[in-house]
């Protein structure tokens, strides 16, 4: 039980930290920020890798969890990078 309270603290503090970190974002960066954050939500990949593989259903669920999270991670980072490389200031 204590572990959940502790992790609940981590959750709450991280949300506040996030709100503080990005409270003022120039509108140029709204899309890249969203897309970059989207790639980070692919962290579910770590969770998917931690799943157990007891029976057949578990294996199928794990496979698809890893698959979807990987699409999110690779697609998310690549498209953010592609987008950011277009934002150039011309001299």
């Amino acid at each position, binding site marked *: *039980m204590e572990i959940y309270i502790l*992790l609940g603290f*981590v*959750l709450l503090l*991280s949300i506040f*930290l*996030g*709100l503080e*970190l*990005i409270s003022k974002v*120039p*509108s*140029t*960066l*709204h*899309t*890249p*920020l*969203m897309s*970059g*954050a*989207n*790639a*980070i*939500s*692919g962290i*579910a*990949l*770590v*969770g998917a*890798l*931690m*799943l*157990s*593989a*007891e*029976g057949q*259903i*578990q294996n199928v669920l794990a*496979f698809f*969890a*890893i698959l*979807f*999270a*990987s*699409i999110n*991670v*690779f*697609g*998310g*980072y690549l*498209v*953010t*990078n592609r*987008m*950011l490389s*277009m*934002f*150039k*200031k011309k001299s």
Partner: protein
Amino acid sequence: MNMLIDITIFQNLVYIVSSVLFILGIKMLGKESTAVRGNILSSVAMLSAVSVTLIDVDIGITIIISAIILGALIGSVIALKVKMTAIPEMVALFNGFGGMASFLIAWSQFTDTQPALLQNLLIMITIYIGGITFSGSIVAYGKLSEKINLEKGSLVTNILVTFFYLSIPALLIMMFAPALSIDSNFIFFGFLVLTVLAGLGFVMPIGGGDMPVVISLLNSLSGIAAAFAGLLLLNNVLIVAGSLVGASGLILTIIMAKAMNRTIGNILFVGYASASSSKSEGEQGEVKPITAEDAYLILENASSVLVVPGYGMAVAQAQHVVRELGELLEENGTEVKYGIHPVAGRMPGHMNVLLAEANVSYDLLVEPDDVNPTMDTFDVAVVIGANDVVNPSATEEPGSPIYGMPIIEVHNAKTVFVLKRSMSSGFAGVQNPLFFKENTRMLFGDAKESIGTVVSEFKD
């Protein structure tokens, strides 16, 4: 100390480092000069967190490798092949996949263990948020790519919306299922299906113009789902990274809602249709059309021009000719600025992405607050496929549904050109008095063709 504890300690140490890198990465993503490095930093964080997890896994290595390779392939192909104009729907799609992963994680945890009360609660919340994020994002994808075109109020939409409202009490019951001694796989599967249907019902009735808010919100939810999956698996890097995404999505959602001067609840559950019905249709006067050739003559003599793009520019794919026109005007000695409204288009920053793709320097882009005070110094404001974000009703007509929404006040410029296909009203369904103003000239037709004509006049 045995081997297993060593591995867990090592993993947790690396997770801490990853969390710090994620925090720095997302912070740097919020500044123009550091955004590229921020994204790279966050991908390094992802790589280290994933690698260290791989040291000790239960799932067979063949399954892991094939799933990751397949995912990498699909993700990379979509990300590199897709056109920049299709970015909004693609972000929506990736977002949905992240939600799906959390959904499946919680499902697996349910099947795996006989969950105690608290675990069961976390499982159900993760399933709910993950499922809604998934199917909601799929609907957002469908709407943005114009594959789904269901009207608000249609029978299918109403049924789906009913599922959404049913899903809320269902979630509450499932959260406390062990205490209520409900343990049937049949009921659990029913809940899984209901969750997915609820996501469809959540997004389906929301109009295209409100998509910037919805996409930001779904973005936030995908992070929250991952954070709850982290609580479930007792994994701190999932919690930290998920929460950061949740927070950044929430901030964007609030920014978007503010830019429309509406509450998030109003956007999600009410919509424009039931806002106070617009009043007197009369005293609109006449519109004054203009030809592209005449527009050229006026532009040639202008010393400052403000371009205000909207969703119409994206539809007409006119960003490249717009940039060309901007360059020709600058060569001609005209000062050119681009006025960008935060909710112009279909996602946060949509216009910025399109103009960046067309190579418009971002220091030429100005926000409403910067440009409105000096609007009367602009000789010409060129409105390209934008409607509600330049509607003067927002400042002049207290009865209007969009009254109070911050707009780009182009009607204060000396002359306004409005490029538009026809006289239909914008997503808000509100008439736009701008079209009937004394200083407004309407340039009807496809924006790309109209500007193309002006550009070729310049070149002659």
